[in-house]
Structures are given as structure tokens and as C-alpha cells.
């Protein structure tokens, strides 16, 4: 960046690429640490149900998904016993990804919930854990603070992300050329092009995920239009009806009446949506003559979360209302929401979501590290960097390598904390944050490069040992799960081993990185005038590795694996910066 700064004179204002580059740098840095955590925890949330299954090992893998029409009457019977006076029950059916039925209901002032066996419909005691829902909730509302605060902070970070993406695209002059450039068989140059193409390839996803993320919270973020348009509760309810399948319970009549057979209602819905198209049923005022039963369509077979449901009279069983479409703006919102969640996807698509999202995580991480890489070369005294530099450097270590350690620690907590511990699920979360805090302290006292390497190795070791711990504490170890064809458990263990390998590889790259002698590269930078633009946007795994490697180096300028060790500008520390500008 300094190179371009020196090229424009004081009288003339900086060009758009320069201003956008600065905007990109600073929005990216300020929101980067939270964004990285949001991105990574959001990424693993694509397997939230599978993580939840792994964290409740006593619940067996399901052989066959129960038919809601057969299960529902039994669940209604159980609920009549558990919560006879509640004004509203909401009962969710098992699906391919979660093997239990569940319910929540209004009991007095607060909601209560239970988990049920998918065959007997009896309540089952499951391990007290938040499961994959912890990462899911953390990624948009953080923790240890009121939910609204967390959501506002996450939204502000998402907005910064959106600005960083747009300004990054403007900065990246040759974005289209780079995408179509691939120089085969040129060793590291080919890697550079592959890396570049991959970064840009992920761009539509990153843009989509950021914008749709804001859309999921837009009612909180932009309430003003609704405030202006709707003066009364009824009008507000009309908006709500376009967004979620929720019908208020209304007033009970006070006269008792048995609930009409729900199986018939569910069969009517199944004729429309298929056998597993029913997600849940909501029963308002159960056991009352004013009862209503709402059969709600599941999210998993369509690319929209807009409400679709059938509303029945709860005592006569008569169909009262069919909600099968919403307005076009509401449907746009429903589709954007569904695109963010990715629940419509089958397994291969969910893996694709996961991998591209992981690339997005690496994009944020490598961007953070890039900040220190670029500035390290310009430090007046490399042995004693200024405070801001050290702060960013250490926060990077804790937020990237430390988060990996903390996330695995969360799984260790799940296996090691006593089943009888009070508030057990809260303690799993405390373990996560205590370990994360510890990695920050560790990063502050160790030399930067050592901090990176040691925490990456720690993460790799913990990840590799997790399948072992799983085999020791449950009877669903890798051999058993593979033999039983239990792909949730086998997949989880194998994924941990793959992530262990990734962390080990990052650690080895960081260790091996040797900054080259400075003066040699001056000419190299000049001759490399054709090198693509800076990797502002870029940074899939390879970029992260190189960037990590570079940042750990005491006086190094850049990731040699990225630039081939030759195309490094001595002043900017970025591969090919001068050539691109």
C-alpha cells in the first residue's frame, strides 16, 4: 500500500482503488476477529444436527425415519399427560438428520421442552448439552450477553463484511482476468492461479452468505418501514404471517373436548408435500373446543423458508385454511433465508456449502494475517514492533489458532464432564470460552511465530485424539461406527482426523517458513510486473497457510509459497503488489 501512497501527489486525491483498498483493510481488520469466529462457527453449523447427534451418544442412530402420521397420535397422547394445561404445544418430528422427536410448549410464563423416543413417543433423558446449536447460536448472537446485543454486534460485523467484499472487488482490478488465467505446469505459478481462481470462485457464495445473513435479522435491523406502514397489531400480524408459520393461540372457550385425530390431518398434508414433508405440528388450546391444529411444512425439501401450513379445527378435524404461498417480496426473503441456512441441500450439497464456507473462513483469516504481513516489512524496529502491531498479531493467533483449540475443547467437555454435573450444558460452553481465553493469554506471552506453531500443533493433537476419546467414552468408536454403517459418528471422527491433518500442515508450513534475504527481492519485484493483483479477497486454505507462515516470521515479508518466493515486493510485503497497480 505504501508503494501506491508514494505515487500519488499530495495535491491530487487518491484514486478509487486506493480509497477502496484502505476501506477494505480497515473494515476487514476491525470486524475481522469476530467475523472469523462467526464464519467458522457458522460453517460447522451446516452440520449442526450431526454435531448434536455426536454430542448425545446415548441416542442410537435411527434405522428408519418414523412416519409422522404414525408417530403423531402417540406424541399427542404423551403431551396430554405432560402439559395438559398449556395453551400451545409445538411438536417436531424426527427427520433424516435428527433421530428424536421434540416438543416445546408454553408452561406458565416460560417455554418448556422435551425430547422423545421416535418410536414409543416417551420422553427420554438425553445428555444435558447444547450440542451443535451452541455454534449455530454463537455465530449470530455470540454469548454471555443479551441476545439482542449479540445480534446487533454480529450484524454490524456482517455489514462491515459486506463493505469489505464490495470494496475488495473494486480494489481487485484484474478480478475477471485472474479468474480465467491458469498457467499449467508452471510449478508455483500454477498454484498461485489455482488459488486465485478459487478465491474468486467463492466470491458469489461469500457475497450471498453475507447479504442473506443480514436478511435473516432484517426485522431487527430495519424496523422503520414496518413502523411507518402498520399502525395496529392486526396489520403487524399480517406481516408476521408472511414470514413464519405462527398462529397466536387465541382465547380458549373453557369447554373441554377431545383432540380430533391428528393422523388424518397429517395424511392430508402428506398428500401435498410427501411423507417427510411435514416438519412439525402446533396445537393451540389443546383439549378445548376452540382448539386449532397447524400442520407445518418442513424446510428441508424446498429452497424457501416461507411459511406453508394447513390449519385444522382441533376438535372436528375440519380443514380451515391452507397457506401455500406468500407475496413475491416475502418469497424473495424466504428464498434468501433458505439459501443462508442451506437446509434444503442433500448431503453432497451440504458438503459443498461447508467447503466453500470454510474457504470463506480462510479468506477472513488470511486477510487478518495479511495485515501484519504487510506491515512487518515496514517496521522501524522489527525486534520491537509498536503496540498496535503486537495487538493485532496476538489477537490473530488467538482468534484463528485459538478458536480451533477452543472448539475442540468444547467437544472434550462434552465427553469428559460428569453426566450429573449441575448446569452441565452451560459448563460445556464455559469450557469453550475458558480455553479460548487461555489461548489468548498464551499468545500474549509467547513469541508470535512460536505461538502460532504451538497452538496449531495443540489443535492438531487435540483433534487427532478426539476420536480416541470418543472410542474410550462411548461404544461408538470409529471401528464400531464404520462396521455399523453409522455415518454420522464415523463421519465426525474422520472429519476430526482430516482437520488434525490440516492443522498439522499449517503448523509445518509455519515452522518451515524462512524469510529470504531482503535485497535479493528488489529486482524480482520489478521483473514480476505481470503478477496478479494482491490477494485481498483471496485466501482459501493455501493462502491461509502461506499467510500464517509469513506472519510468524520475525522479519519476513511474505508467504513464499504463494508468490514462489520471487514476486515479493520488499516494501509492501505483498506478492506482486506493484505490478498490479
Amino acid at each position, binding site marked *: 500500500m505504501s508503494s501506491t501512497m508514494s505515487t500519488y501527489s499530495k495535491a491530487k*486525491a487518491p484514486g*478509487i482503488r486506493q*480509497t*477502496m483498498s*484502505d*476501506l477494505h483493510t480497515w473494515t476487514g481488520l476491525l470486524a475481522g476477529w469476530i467475523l472469523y469466529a462467526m464464519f467458522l462457527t457458522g460453517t460447522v453449523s451446516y452440520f449442526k444436527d450431526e454435531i448434536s447427534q455426536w454430542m448425545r451418544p446415548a441416542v442410537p442412530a435411527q434405522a428408519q425415519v418414523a412416519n409422522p402420521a404414525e408417530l403423531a397420535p402417540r406424541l399427542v397422547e404423551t403431551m396430554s399427560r405432560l402439559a395438559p394445561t398449556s395453551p400451545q404445544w409445538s411438536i417436531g418430528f424426527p427427520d433424516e438428520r435428527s433421530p428424536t422427536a421434540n416438543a416445546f410448549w408454553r408452561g406458565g410464563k416460560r417455554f418448556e421442552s422435551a425430547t422423545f423416543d421416535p418410536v414409543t413417543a416417551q420422553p427420554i433423558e438425553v445428555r444435558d448439552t447444547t450440542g451443535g446449536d451452541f455454534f449455530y447460536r454463537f455465530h449470530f448472537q455470540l454469548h454471555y450477553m443479551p441476545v439482542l446485543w449479540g445480534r446487533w454486534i454480529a450484524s454490524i460485523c456482517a*455489514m462491515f463484511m*459486506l*463493505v469489505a467484499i*464490495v*470494496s475488495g472487488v*473494486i480494489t481487485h482490478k484484474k478480478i475477471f482476468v485472474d479468474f480465467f488465467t491458469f498457467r499449467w505446469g508452471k510449478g508455483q505459478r500454477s498454484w498461485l492461479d489455482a488459488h486465485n481462481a478459487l478465491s474468486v470462485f467463492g466470491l458469489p457464495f461469500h457475497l450471498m452468505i453475507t*447479504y442473506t445473513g*443480514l*436478511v435473516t435479522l*432484517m*426485522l431487527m*435491523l*430495519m424496523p*422503520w*418501514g*414496518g413502523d*411507518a*406502514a*402498520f399502525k395496529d397489531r392486526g*396489520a403487524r400480524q*399480517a*406481516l408476521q404471517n*408472511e414470514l413464519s408459520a405462527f398462529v397466536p393461540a387465541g382465547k380458549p372457550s373453557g369447554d373441554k373436548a377431545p383432540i380430533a385425530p391428528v393422523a388424518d390431518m397429517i395424511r392430508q398434508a402428506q398428500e401435498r408435500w410427501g411423507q417427510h414433508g411435514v416438519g412439525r405440528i402446533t396445537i393451540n388450546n389443546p383439549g378445548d373446543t376452540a382448539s386449532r391444529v397447524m400442520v407445518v411444512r418442513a424446510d428441508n425439501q424446498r429452497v424457501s423458508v416461507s411459511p406453508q401450513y394447513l390449519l385444522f379445527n382441533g376438535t372436528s378435524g375440519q380443514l380451515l385454511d391452507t397457506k401455500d404461498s406468500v*407475496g*413475491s*417480496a*416475502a418469497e*424473495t*426473503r424466504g428464498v*434468501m433465508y433458505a439459501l443462508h441456512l442451506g437446509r434444503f441441500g442433500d448431503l453432497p450439497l451440504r458438503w459443498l456449502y461447508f467447503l466453500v464456507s470454510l474457504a470463506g473462513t480462510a479468506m477472513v483469516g488470511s486477510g487478518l494475517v495479511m495485515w501484519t504481513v504487510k506491515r512487518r516489512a515496514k517496521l522501524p524496529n522489527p525486534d520491537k514492533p509498536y503496540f498496535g502491531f503486537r495487538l493485532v498479531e496476538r489477537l490473530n493467533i488467538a482468534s484463528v489458532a485459538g478458536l480451533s483449540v477452543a472448539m475442540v475443547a468444547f467437544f472434550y467437555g462434552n465427553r469428559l464432564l460428569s453426566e450429573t454435573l449441575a448446569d452441565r450444558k452451560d459448563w460445556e460452553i464455559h469450557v469453550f470460552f475458558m480455553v479460548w481465553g487461555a489461548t489468548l493469554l498464551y499468545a500474549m506471552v509467547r513469541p508470535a511465530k512460536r505461538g502460532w506453531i504451538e497452538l496449531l500443533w495443540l489443535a492438531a493433537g487435540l483433534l487427532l485424539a478426539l476420536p480416541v476419546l470418543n472410542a474410550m467414552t462411548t461404544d461408538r468408536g470409529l471401528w464400531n461406527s464404520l462396521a455399523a454403517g453409522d455415518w454420522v459418528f464415523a463421519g465426525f471422527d474422520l472429519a476430526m482426523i482430516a482437520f488434525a491433518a490440516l492443522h498439522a500442515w499449517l503448523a509445518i508450513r509455519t515452522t518451515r517458513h524462512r524469510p529470504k534475504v531482503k535485497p535479493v527481492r528488489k529486482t524480482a519485484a520489478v521483473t514480476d510486473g505481470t503478477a496478479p493483483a494482491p490477494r485481498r479477497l483471496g485466501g482459501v486454505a493455501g493462502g491461509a497457510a502461506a499467510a500464517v507462515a509469513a506472519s510468524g516470521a520475525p522479519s519476513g515479508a511474505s508467504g513464499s509459497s504463494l508468490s514462489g518466493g520471487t514476486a515479493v515486493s520488499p516494501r509492501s510485503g505483498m506478492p506482486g503488489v506493484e505490478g498490479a497497480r
Partner: protein
Amino acid sequence: MNARLRKVVGVGPLLSRIVAALFGGYALAALCSVAAVALPMAPTEAVLTGMLASFVVYVCAVVWVFAVRSATRAWVGLAIAALPLSLAAWSVWK
């Protein structure tokens, strides 16, 4: 002393731009979401359209604020964009 004063004054335009981007940008986006209610469509549809589009407006505003030559221009640009939106929003509020 003089140098320090100049340094403080020197960051003024940058601070002004940051305020313009963060709060001016949000105000413009919010205004847009209200103005959308004036669109000739069902109220719920218009409200949702305004919400969905507001983040595009926010991003464009931020890019504008940092792209133009001076902080004054940044504010003037926001004000000019706000003018027609205010008229539409006023027709909704009144």
C-alpha cells in the same frame, strides 16, 4: 503544541467520513426502507421490499463516502440522495 493541534484537526475529515458512513449510511438505508412503503403494492410487500433493499443502499453509501474527494462532498452526496427519499418517506408518515 501547534503541531499537535494540526494533527487533531487533520483527523477531522476522516472522523467526519466515518460518522457519515456509519450513521449517515444507516440513516439513508432506513429512509429508503420507509420510502419503499410508498411503492404501489401491498403494504407487507412494500415493507419487505424496503428492508431487503436497504442493505444495498447502506453499502453504496459507505463506498460513496470513502470514494469521493472530500468529507464535505460525502455529506452533500448523502443529503442529495436523502432528498427524494425523504419526500417519499414523508408521504408515508403523514
